[in-house]
């Protein structure tokens, strides 16, 4: 394992110190319990927006704390969900009287830890809602599984809900919006290589010299199917088809198309993939009204990509376009 780290146990803390040093205008980092909170405080009466999850997916979620997106984020250890005490402290820090929405990616650990945090926060008198994001079409959604994972859709949802909270949405309305976004977004990812959790020191899985993993999650957990590497255009089609069919997206739909690098994919390849994704969207009669291209929800140095598509009405597009100023996403500000 070659990594730009010191002690593997210190990676998360030291990276957070780096974020704090780089973005004092945007965010503040608290330790013990660990959370990242916007530097300028939550405006009175605004619903607080909190997310969190394992580290190693940067810029998500810490990099989305600032103005117009998340008010706080709780980073866990690498690929390990954070703990309820972190979430409780962050929830208290961003409650400005209007309650707090927790955006939770559907992983057993995240869900259970957030659940415990909610129990704690509510016993402390804060109105907390939580929406579980489960946009990954690679996973069969049945009562016999943990359900679909929360992946790329989370990025779009955090942006959109952040704008809505800024606009003054109530906790009820924000919860409804978040649920509606989740209902209208689908994702699927793939990997060409594994990644190595610093404390594990070895790749989470092995892929042969000409193998790829289709339907990968964002924690290096194996996906739906292992197969021989194919040309990029075919890979993109393998991701796009299940996405389009699942919602289903329909001829005439306006969509936000998000092609995401898993971390180790050169940007030139991400754009190459975007080309095909946009072409396929068009062939399905979809109108790509907005897009996002680059590494936003990553799995350390994993090479691969994920595609996310959200059905976007005018409201959603307006919220998408609203100013955002965070380390990882910024426009209009």
């Amino acid at each position, binding site marked *: 394992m070659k990594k730009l780290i010191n002690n593997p146990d210190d990676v998360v803390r030291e990276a957070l110190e780096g974020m704090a040093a780089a973005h004092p205008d945007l965010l503040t980092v608290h330790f013990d319990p660990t959370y990242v909170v916007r530097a300028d405080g939550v405006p009175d009466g605004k619903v607080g927006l909190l997310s969190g999850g*394992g580290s190693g997916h940067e810029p998500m979620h810490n990099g989305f704390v600032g103005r117009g997106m998340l008010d706080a984020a709780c980073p866990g250890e690498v*690929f390990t969900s954070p703990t309820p005490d972190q979430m409780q402290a962050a929830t208290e820090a961003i409650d400005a009287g209007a309650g707090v929405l927790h955006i939770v990616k559907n992983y057993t650990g995240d869900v*259970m830890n957030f659940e415990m945090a909610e129990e704690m926060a509510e016993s402390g008198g804060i109105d907390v809602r939580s929406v579980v994001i489960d946009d990954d079409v690679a996973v069969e959604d049945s009562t*016999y599984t943990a359900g679909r994972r929360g992946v790329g859709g989370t990025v779009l949802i955090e942006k959109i809900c952040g704008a809505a909270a800024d606009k003054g949405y109530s906790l009820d309305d924000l919860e409804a919006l978040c649920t509606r976004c989740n209902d209208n977004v689908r994702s699927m990812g793939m990997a060409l290589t594994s990644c190595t*959790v610093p*404390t594990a020191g070895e790749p989470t899985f092995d892929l042969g010299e000409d193998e790829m993993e289709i339907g990968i999650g964002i924690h290096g*957990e*194996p996906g739906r199917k292992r197969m021989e590497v194919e040309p990029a255009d075919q890979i993109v089609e393998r991701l796009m088809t299940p996405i389009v069919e699942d919602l289903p997206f329909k001829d005439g739909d306006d969509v936000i198309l998000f092609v995401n690098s898993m971390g180790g994919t050169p940007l030139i390849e991400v754009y190459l993939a975007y080309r095909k994704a946009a072409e396929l969207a068009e062939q399905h009669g979809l109108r790509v009204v907005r897009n996002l291209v680059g590494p936003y929800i990553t799995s350390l140095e994993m090479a691969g990509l994920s595609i996310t598509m959200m059905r976007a009405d005018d409201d959603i597009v307006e919220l998408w376009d609203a100013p955002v100023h965070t380390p990882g996403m910024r426009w209009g500000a």
Partner: protein
Amino acid sequence: MPLTAPDLHAWIRAFADRVAEERAYLTKLDSAIGDGDHGQNMNRGLSHAVDQIDDDASMSDTMRTVAMALISKTGGASGPLYGTLFMDAGKTTAEHEELGTPEVAALFRAGLNGVQRRGKAEPNDKTMVDALLPAVEALEDAAENGTPLSEAIQQAANAAKKGMEATTPLEARKGRASYLGERSKGHQDPGATSTYYLLDAAATAWSDRA
């Protein structure tokens, strides 16, 4: 001699030591069907728990301390699950000065219920429940038969071990491994493995207790 607080301390220390020893192995199991952090998670949570244990604390305070330590430091799925296990198990110790086989059976039964309340796993979902449930049943049988604790807990550890081994052919239905579907077959569940260590640590720590 039945169990008192120092015996619980010894048990938790033995559990922490075992997990520290097997940390890499647990992580390897988790890499195969999960995300490769179960060893680190458990080790982080348990070393914190050991640090927090107060030698003079009562049984129920000890269990609560361990629960809170695990909840706040473990992370992942195992944090809330083991945290709830200790939290709910600990509640059963409140009314007792000391624990014999029936009380230990009740303690683990409450822990199992907590795990299932929190995680909604059924038997054969390929989770820690598959090691814990047979252990609880063994303890309850032993309690019914009046088996002394040292023997009962050894039977429970044996049952947990069998349960752990029996997870290998199963298809996972809960947790991260469930994403693998069919491909989760043929791998032993990491959480069931750490749960076996939990029972085995008790068997070791209480080998001369009645």
